[in-house]
């Protein structure tokens, strides 16, 4: 039996260069059963290279990439994963049911076609040619192909890019259901909302290195900033000079009576606001979201590199 502690997916100190460019420099990541890991990073940060290593499409220069403790090229390992790539390049002149038929045949114990249809929302699409589907429908077909083999690990590369909000939410619900059944999911996405909704853990890549790794809460905590929004008549130029204030704008939401203050020292700033403006009202304090944390993390790194 497999040691339950062995991760399903594992990159161990992986290095990869393409000519002069270091695509990955010492990246570690792992994924366990029933877990969603979001891999975040700007374009060129190394996300695609990391995925390519795990799918056996590319070999590390140094370090190890493993699926279920096996080399990713191993057929029996790949029979336990499902893949949804950003562009599958599926030919136009093949029908949806034919694609499913073929892809299901690769797996030892595939889902039934009816299950695939239900999971991915392919009702009424089976006899259509792939090239005649809308972009969103094609994405759903790719999702069906990813889950049709009843995989233990799903690789989802930008799964909901270009999808309507209701289709996206339906896909999220399906992913959550699969995760609840024990499927591990490695997700890359541009939508931080998607990572926040689905993932327990996040790995932020920046220039081929892990810039941050941890739970969503831990990543957010990297950023101590809060946002204070309130109705106030105070002069924003003056507020900007207060200690602890990192930025002030008036009318950020189109309401000229509202100001937004970005601070890393919330309580003193809040006390002073209340002291200086008796009319102050409708206070709203927000902790930075994953998006702010992400920007902060990658900006920090860029600054260090420039220095």
């Amino acid at each position, binding site marked *: *039996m*497999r*040691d339950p502690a*062995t991760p399903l997916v594992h990159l161990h100190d992986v290095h990869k260069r393409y000519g002069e460019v270091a695509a990955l420099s010492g990246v570690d990541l792992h994924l366990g059963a029933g877990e969603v890991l979001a891999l975040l990073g700007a374009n060129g940060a190394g996300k695609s290279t990391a995925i390519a290593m795990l*799918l*056996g*499409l590319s070999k590390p220069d140094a370090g190890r990439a493993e699926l*279920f*403790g*096996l080399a990713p090229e191993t*057929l*029996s390992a*790949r*029979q*336990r*994963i499902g*893949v949804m*790539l950003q*562009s*599958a*390049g*599926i*030919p136009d*002149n*093949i029908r949806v049911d*034919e694609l499913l*038929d*073929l*892809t299901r*045949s*690769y*797996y*030892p*114990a595939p889902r039934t076609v009816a299950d695939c249809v239900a999971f991915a929302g392919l009702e009424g699409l089976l006899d259509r040619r792939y090239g005649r589907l809308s972009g969103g429908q094609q994405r759903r077909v790719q999702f069906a192909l990813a889950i049709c*083999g009843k995989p233990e690990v799903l*690789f989802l590369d930008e799964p909901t890019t270009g999808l309507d909000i209701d289709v996206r939410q339906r896909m999220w619900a399906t992913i959550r259901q699969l995760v609840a059944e024990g499927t591990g999911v490695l997700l890359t996405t541009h939508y931080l909302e998607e990572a926040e909704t689905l993932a327990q853990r996040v790995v932020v890549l920046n220039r081929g290195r892990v810039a941050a790794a941890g739970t969503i809460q831990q990543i957010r905590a990297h950023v101590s900033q809060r946002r204070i929004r309130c109705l106030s008549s105070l002069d924003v130029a003056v507020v900007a000079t207060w200690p602890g204030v990192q930025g002030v704008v008036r009318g950020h939401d189109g309401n000229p009576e509202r100001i937004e203050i970005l601070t890393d020292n919330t309580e003193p700033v809040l006390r002073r606001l209340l002291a200086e403006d008796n009319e102050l009202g409708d206070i709203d304090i927000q902790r930075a979201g994953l998006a702010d944390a992400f920007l902060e993390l990658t900006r920090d790194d860029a600054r260090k590199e420039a220095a």
Partner: protein
Amino acid sequence: MTALPMSSDAIATRHSPVRSYLLEAKYECLRLLRTPSFAVPSLLFPPLFYLLFGVLLNKSSGDAARYLLATYGVFGVMGVGLFAFGVTVALEREQGFLIYKRALPMPPGAYLFAKMTMATLFAMMISLLLAALAATVGGVELRASQWLLLFLVNVIGVLPFAALGLYIGSLIGGQGAPAVVNILYLPMAFLSGLWLPLKLLPTWIAKLAPVWPSYHHAQIALKVIGMDGGKPLALHLGVLLGVTVLFFVLARRRFAA
């Protein structure tokens, strides 16, 4: 290395890849039959040309009908090999489909097997269409063994062109591949004596002809009906085998990179 869990081992032995190979081949054929820009010229042009030049415009001798039966077979099979491999592989590589297929647990070699099956099937269809035309309106009479041999020469002869096509597909993008294939295909057909016997062409063309793989394929087909140039069979077979291995190895190297 960690051992596989028992359950998955047991499943893996039950699961047979044969079905994947067959389905892969079936859908490859269906896909190309649904592509009129491939299927129509591949299947219709060789018989149509044969009908025109071998039958309708040829009132004089039965020799032309026999000669062109052999060479249009080579012409058709060469087109299938070059287009079915060169153009489809180039497109599928460019659009990312090859990478997607590699990421899926497709059994090894299923992609090539499917393309080979499709090319063989098209070669058979062309061969049968030509034979039907020749035997009826062409008035060609051959022994049963000659019909059979001609069929086999056509079908097996798709291999060197498939390898050449595969290499072109590994080098050139989907937009450029049809142009490159046509630039090779049509002049090579003419210069190998597929449209007109080499005897009727300028001597320098005849001298140059052994450079082209299609010449060697045509000479083997012509040997079957006793109309070849008289060079040894082993030479032609050797060249075609060499061409097949060379371009297959070159293509493999490109895909591995």
